């Protein structure tokens, strides 16, 4: 891991963690309570930024997977797996925080609503990505298989979205990204954007650390087995 990358990762991490603390202070003490949903609505400021990061991360996985299959550059694969791990983490946060809100707002832990279904399936596509990666003897093959899963996943997501949207939507509609501008209270908007910044910085920091680790692991593996040679069995007398 180069010094520059480490420094950036550390700075993003400190800033991200700091902002996460700020968001929690805003959520618990500052932002006003939503009228119809009450206190439980405050999960929104954790839930929505996590979802945004989860999908952003999958975008990185998809682009890096395509580029890796094309160029076979180890750095691109390292970026893909780093983004996938971050994406899996934040998808899990979305899937855990959602039901708590849903139980109180909808009266059910889970409903078959398009965005929930899509996020759950995204989680399983990530799972397949990691399982495939880890279950080959030759790590190069695992990387290629994972990239194939990543590409198929991203091609399928629009189709999944269309098909699950067939069912009537129960999920709250958009309150920020609307053509006529956000309809959210300014205080809530501030809290939400602080959350977005916090989670994005946290993700980027984790991403850079993970990327550095992946590069080091790769360098060690390459150092042990020079190009084209099989690793020598240890403890065998010649």
């Amino acid at each position: 891991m180069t010094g520059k990358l480490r420094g950036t990762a550390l700075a993003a991490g400190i800033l991200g963690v700091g902002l996460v603390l700020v968001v929690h202070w805003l959520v618990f003490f500052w932002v006003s309570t939503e009228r119809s949903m009450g206190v439980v609505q405050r999960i929104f400021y954790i839930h929505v930024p996590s979802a945004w990061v989860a999908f952003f991360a999958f975008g990185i996985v998809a682009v890096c997977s395509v580029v890796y299959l094309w160029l076979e550059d180890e750095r691109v694969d390292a970026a893909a797996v780093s983004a996938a791990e971050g994406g899996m983490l934040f998808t899990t946060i979305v899937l855990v925080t959602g039901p708590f809100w849903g139980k109180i707002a909808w009266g059910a832990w889970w409903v078959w609503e398009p965005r929930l279904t899509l996020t759950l399936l995204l989680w399983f596509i990530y799972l397949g990505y990691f399982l495939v990666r880890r279950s080959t003897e030759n790590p190069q093959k695992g990387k290629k298989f994972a990239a194939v899963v990543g590409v198929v996943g991203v091609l399928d997501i629009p189709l999944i979205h269309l098909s699950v949207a067939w069912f009537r939507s129960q999920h709250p509609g958009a309150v920020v990204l609307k053509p006529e501008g956000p309809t959210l209270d300014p205080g809530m908007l501030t809290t939400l954007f602080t959350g977005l910044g916090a989670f994005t910085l946290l993700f980027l920091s984790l991403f850079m650390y993970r990327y550095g680790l992946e590069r080091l692991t790769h360098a060690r593996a390459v150092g042990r087995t020079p190009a084209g040679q099989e690793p020598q069995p240890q403890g065998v007398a010649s």
Partner: protein
Amino acid sequence: MREYLSQIGALLRKDLMLELRTRERVASMAAFAVLVGILFNYAFDRSLVRPQDIAAGLIWMTIVFGGMLGMGRSFRTEEEEDAMQGILASPVPRDAIYLAKVAANLLILLVVVILTFFVFWLFFGLHFGGDPLPLVMVVLLGTLGFVAVSTLFSAVSSRTSMGETLLPILVFPVLVPVVIYGVSGTARIFAGRPIAEIAGNIRMLGAFALVALAAGAILFRFVVEE
């Protein structure tokens, strides 16, 4: 183009001949379909639920789960004694190998699909609606999409240490559109709805099959190349 088609034809003939001689995959999938039909008979109370109302879902689940049995073994012969190396060494484009395998798997699975419909007709006294064309379209395109995805992922899973157990984990999340449009289309046909209500399903199943086939044909080379 002619050469390309004759290459696909040759590979397809090889796969069908192997299946015709062993009948391994058709036999196991067919037995699965009939046995599931028997189990479904006891899985719900027929005095409370009319089989006609839930048959579409049951039929598609039988096709998908039964199909997994056969699809997981798509590349078994190629894996034995490195036969895949022989095919890869022949002057055939990688996508032709994939498309031939999809065609073979589709034909094998269609035999099982027809048997599944027969089993449900026989055991549950279903009637499948008047005009057979919409049903044929829904089933054909849905099965094609399923086979296109599972053939690609079968090539992946057969090269991992997890083998066939990995296949459903890779295929099912991606397969959701096929199940949604396939089941709802089939249910509407069973309920005797007009064709205009099924046209959207057929279009979406067609789009899925097309995307899956194109993606599979392009990505297959990255899976099989050493």
